């Protein structure tokens, strides 16, 4: 599903943020991605959702070497990846409904199906009363749920979430993780970057730990030293 071979990454001509990252994720797996602030979690996710090219090494996604893909092939691949950004990245002038509908529209879904599907999911994440609201009028936690709804609406093959529970209380955080597990049961491979040790403990999944530009794999329940 995902394979990194001695991957390095840098921003512009800056120092390498990630060095010699090598790992493999099985299809349908569920991982937490942890590490201190600034360790490069968001950067690793950027490589995964194809927003950044590695400065060296080989990235294989959906069994394809991404450096060999054409632009149209890359955009088809991107549509199979759902992303929850650390800063949400909602489109301010679109309603909640239209924001969440975006991946469906990109995939060319029918309008009537889009509306039904999207409002159902928004009700499920507790935003049934805010279908027409613009993101700037929502609270941080509500925006985060819109971002999550947008990431999962298309049942992506790969879901990447960057601190998806950073702005919500434990009850909603747990509920959102249950949503991710539900998606995982349906076959989606999941990587969640988080600082929330309580959640990591409650949900029994292996973790990828980033530190000093290197990546360690830890089995479920294990803690980095």
């Amino acid at each position, binding site marked *: 599903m995902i394979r990194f071979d001695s991957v390095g990454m840098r921003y512009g001509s800056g120092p390498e943020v990630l060095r010699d990252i090598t790992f493999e994720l099985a299809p349908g797996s569920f991982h937490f991605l942890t590490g201190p602030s600034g360790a490069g979690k968001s950067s690793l996710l950027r490589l995964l*959702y*194809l*927003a*950044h*090219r590695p400065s060296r090494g080989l990235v294989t996604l959906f069994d394809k070497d991404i450096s060999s893909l054409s*632009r*149209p092939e890359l*955009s*088809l*691949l*991107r*549509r*199979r*990846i759902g*992303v929850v950004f650390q800063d949400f*990245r909602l*489109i301010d*002038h*679109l309603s909640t409904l*239209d924001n969440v509908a*975006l*991946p469906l*529209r*990109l995939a060319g879904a029918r*309008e009537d199906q889009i509306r039904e599907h999207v409002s159902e999911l928004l009700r499920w994440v507790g935003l049934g009363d805010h279908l027409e609201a613009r993101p700037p009028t929502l609270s941080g936690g509500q925006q985060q749920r819109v971002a999550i709804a947008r990431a999962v609406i298309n049942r992506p093959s790969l879901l990447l979430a960057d601190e998806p529970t950073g702005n919500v209380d434990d009850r909603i955080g747990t509920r959102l993780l249950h949503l991710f597990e539900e998606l995982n049961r349906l076959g989606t491979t999941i990587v969640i970057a988080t600082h929330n040790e309580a959640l990591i403990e409650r949900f029994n999944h292996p973790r990828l730990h980033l530190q000093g530009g290197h990546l360690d794999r830890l089995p479920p329940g294990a803690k980095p030293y």
Partner: protein
Amino acid sequence: MLKIHYDLPLHRDSASRFLPWITGLMVFLGVMSLAFALVLGNAASSWSQALGSSLTVQILPLAPGKPGQDERVRQALDLLRETPGVSAARALPKSESEKLVSPWLGSNASLSDLPLPTLVDVRADGTSLNVALLRQRLDAEIPGSVLDDHGNWLGEVSRAAVTVQTLAFGALALIALTAILAVIFAVRAGLQLNRSTVELLHIMGASDRYIARQFQRSAAGNASRGGLAGLVLAVLALFAAQRIVGPQSGLPIRLALPLTDCLWLLLVPLAATFFAALTARLTVLATLKRLP
């Protein structure tokens, strides 16, 4: 039908708000210079038709003792009438010739005593008349005859008309270039303003064409709105000019354009819309190439 979804707030940013104004002005100027070029073209060809189909032969009076004036005029008429390409030849009666010179000599001068040349008005049909050959024969057979085919004057006029027309087309090309540059600027500014959303769409798997289409449609919409306004203003201005420089003004130029030429004018806002859309598309596609 596909409903258009604008994921980008392109209608809101100032760069695209100013696009209708620019295209409006450009279309106005474009229609005016094209109309100018067409009017000139029509005028030049109607002048050359009118002049080209008429020639004048002057039979100069000769000293006493040489063949008589009337005799030579008759000879000239015979020669002209049997020349292929000549549809009519008519000697101007003395009274008409006198009328032609009277403004210079005063009407009470006793013109009948003056040895005036006799003017023969020749109508040619189409282009089948060989002017050089006719001149040769007249020189050889009728002494004291001079053929004037208005050729020099015609040449000057049409050269002038073509020059001004070329300038007008040049102006049109510059106007089009300016409009294209304005669209490029507006689209770049729009891309810059909506940079984070464009990147987001890209990351979510929107194809370059999907993103370009939004800019393209917005540019086409803006350009067609501006272009329509520009066209309406230009047509009003042309009508006004036509009223001032109408047939009653006595100027040898007609501002009224035939229907086919009016269609060319309609083409200006259409072309502006098309090129605005195309420019927007190419600009966006070129910029998107820089994203990974």
